[in-house]
C-alpha cells in the first residue's frame, strides 16, 4: 500500500510479512486441486499407484490426454470425449449469442423505451435468476416434447437461452439505465427507429457489459450438467455429461490419469475464457455510466 503514509517500523514490517505469507499459503492451498489434477494427468498409471499424490512425474507422458480425447470409454462407446467437447461448443456458442442478444434488447427496451409496468416486468424477470433448475425439469421436458425438440441440440439451446435471459437482461438493464435518455431522444429526433438506435448508438458502447454477459453465460452453460443429462440424446450430450460417464465407466482398470486429463479438457475452455477476458469482466461489472 504505497498510498498509505506510515512509518516503517520493524514491527510493522514483520506484520506485513506475516500477512503476505498467509495470503500466499491460502493461494497455494486453493491451487492444490488443480496441481494434483495436472500432475496426475501426465503420470503413467504405475507411478500413480506407487507414488504420492503430490510427487512430480518421473516419466511425464501425454498419453492419458490422448486417450481421454479419442479412446476412453464413456458408457458403451469408446471414442473419448473429443466428440462431446465439440458438442458442447455447438450448444454453448448459439445459446450464449442468442441469450446475450435477447438480454441486450430487453435491457434496452426496459430502460430507454419505458412503458407502463416496465419496472414490474423487470422485477418479475429477476425472479428467473432464482428459480432452481430442478423445478423446471419436468415441465421443460414436456414442453420440449411438444415442440418436437426432445433430445436435440436445438432443444438444449432453447433451455439454456430461456434460463439465461433473466441474467443477461439484468446485466444489460443495469448497464443501459446509466445511459442518458437524451442520447436516445436525440437519435429519435434524427429519425432512427428502435432497432437502428440499438444497433448504431447503444451496442457500440456496450463492450464492457457484452464481455460480462458472454463470460457469465459461457461458464454457466458450459458447466451445466443437469440440463445436459436430462434433455440431451446420445449424440448431443455435452462434455460434462460425457465426463461423468467416462469417470463412472466400471469396466477394466480405473485409469485415474485419463479421468484427470478428461476433467482438464472439460474445464479448459472456461479457464481460457477467464484468462483472456477476466480483467474485462471485472471492469464491466464495475462500469457505470457512459461518458459522452
Amino acid at each position, binding site marked *: 500500500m504505497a498510498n498509505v503514509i506510515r512509518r516503517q517500523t520493524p514491527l510493522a514490517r514483520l506484520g506485513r510479512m506475516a500477512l503476505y505469507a498467509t495470503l500466499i499459503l491460502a493461494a497455494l492451498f486453493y491451487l492444490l486441486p488443480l496441481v494434483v489434477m495436472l500432475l496426475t494427468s501426465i503420470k503413467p498409471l504405475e507411478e500413480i499407484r506407487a507414488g504420492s499424490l503430490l510427487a512430480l512425474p518421473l516419466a511425464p507422458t501425454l498419453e492419458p490426454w490422448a486417450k481421454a480425447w479419442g479412446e476412453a470409454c464413456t458408457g458403451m462407446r469408446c471414442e473419448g470425449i473429443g466428440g462431446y467437447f465439440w458438442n458442447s461448443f455447438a450448444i454453448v456458442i448459439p445459446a450464449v449469442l442468442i441469450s446475450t442478444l435477447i438480454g441486450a434488447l430487453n435491457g434496452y427496451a426496459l430502460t430507454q423505451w419505458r412503458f407502463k409496468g416496465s419496472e414490474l416486468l423487470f422485477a418479475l424477470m429477476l425472479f428467473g435468476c432464482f428459480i432452481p433448475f430442478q423445478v423446471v425439469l419436468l415441465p421443460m421436458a414436456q414442453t420440449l416434447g411438444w415442440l418436437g425438440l426432445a433430445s436435440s441440440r436445438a432443444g438444449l439451446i432453447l433451455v439454456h437461452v430461456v434460463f439465461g435471459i433473466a441474467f443477461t437482461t439484468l446485466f444489460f438493464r443495469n448497464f443501459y439505465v446509466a445511459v*442518458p435518455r*437524451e*442520447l436516445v*431522444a*436525440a*437519435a*429519435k*429526433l*434524427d*429519425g*432512427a427507429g428502435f432497432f*437502428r438506435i440499438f444497433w*448504431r*448508438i447503444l451496442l*457500440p*458502447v456496450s463492450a464492457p457489459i457484452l464481455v460480462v454477459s458472454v463470460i457469465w453465460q459461457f461458464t454457466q452453460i458450459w458447466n451445466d450438467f443437469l440440463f445436459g443429462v436430462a434433455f440431451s440424446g446420445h449424440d448431443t450430450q455435452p462434455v460434462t455429461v460425457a465426463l461423468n460417464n467416462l469417470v463412472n465407466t466400471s469396466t477394466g482398470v480405473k485409469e485415474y490419469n485419463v479421468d484427470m486429463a478428461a476433467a482438464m479438457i472439460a474445464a479448459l475452455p472456461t479457464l481460457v475464457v477467464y484468462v483472456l477476458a477476466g480483467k474485462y469482466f471485472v471492469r464491466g461489472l464495475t462500469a457505470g455510466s*457512459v*461518458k*459522452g
Partner: protein
Amino acid sequence: MSALEINEVRKTFGNTEVLKEVSLAIESGEFLILVGPSGCGKSTLMNAIAGLEPVTSGEIRIAGRDVTWCTPAERDIAMVFQSYALYPSMTVRQNIAFGLEMRKMPRGEREAAVERVADLLQISHLLERKPSQLSGGQRQRVAMGRALAREPQVYLFDEPLSNLDAKLRVDMRTEIKKLHQRLGTTIVYVTHDQIEAMTLADRIAVMRDGEILQLGTPEAIYNDPVNRFVAEFMGSPSMNLIEATLEGDAGQGYRLRIATPGEDDLCLPWPRPTEALASRVGQRVLLGLRPEHFAEHDARLDEAAQGAPFSARVSVAEPTGADILLRLPLGTGEVTARVGPRCPAVPGERLALRIDLERAVLFDGESEQRLA
C-alpha cells in the same frame, strides 16, 4: 401562418397537472424563450413539442401541419440538449451526418452539409474526433452543428448552455444570437437563466406551475410585469418590492405611505392613477422598484425632474466596477439601489437619493397581480 402553434396543450402525470392548457404561437424566424423555475413545466412543454412525450390533450402544429400524434422524426425539428447527447461511438463527422443519413440524403450532399455547418461553427478541424476528445464548448458546437445540418422547421434548445463555465456561456450566448440573426431560424429555447432570456429572445414566455404567466418582448416582461412573480424572476439584482399603504383618491391623486422602523413615514405621490386603484385605498399594496429606479440626488438638476426625494442610512455598499449596489432600509426590509460608480456612499451614513416613480409598478398586496 405560424411556424409553431400550440393550442390548449395539457399534460398530466397521474393526478399532477404539469401543463395547464398552454397556448402560444411563434412566427417563422422568431426566437422564443421559455423561462421559469425548475418544475414549472418548461421542459415538459419542450418535450411535447419534440414529440418525446405525448400530450394529454390539445394540439401542436408545425408550419400549419397538425403533428400532435406524429413521431419526433416526422415533425421536422432538431433539438440541442443540455447534456449535448452526442453519440459516443461516432466521430464528430458521423454525429453531424447521422440525421441526414437516417433521412436518406445521398452521401455527396451529406458530406457537403457537414462541411457547411463545420465551417459555420468553426469545428472543421474536429471532424475526425470522438466526443470524448472534445472540450465542453466544442461538444456544444457539435451539438448545434448536428441540429443545423438538418435545416428543420423549428429548432429546440433545452438549456444548452447550463453545463458550460461562466465565460464560455457568455461567448456561446453571443454566438447563438449571431447565428440566429444570420440564418433567421425559428428557435424555441428553454432556460432558467433570466439573463439568457433577456439577451437572446424576441419574445419571452415566463412559466410557473404549468402555466404561461406572461408572454411578451423582453422589454415588456422587464418593464411591465403582470404580477409579482414575473417582476421578481426577471432582472438581476431582482426588483425591490416594498409594502406600502395606498392613500388619497382619484381626484386629488394617490399617495403611497411606506413605514420604515426607526424612520419617519415616507409618502410618495403615485404618478399614474388607474381605475383599479380606487377600490384599494387604505389597503396594503406592493411597490415594485428596480435597483436602477433609484438615483443619486443631483443638486445641479431641477428638483421636479429628478423624481421623489428619499434619504436613508446606507447599510452596505457593493462596488461592481461599472456601478455601486447599495443596501438601504426601506419599508419592513432592505432595498437594493444601483447608483453611479462615483457616488460618495459611506456605510452607516445617510445618503440623499431620488426615486423614479414614473417607471415603478404597483401590485395588489393579496393577489400580487399588477394594479398600475
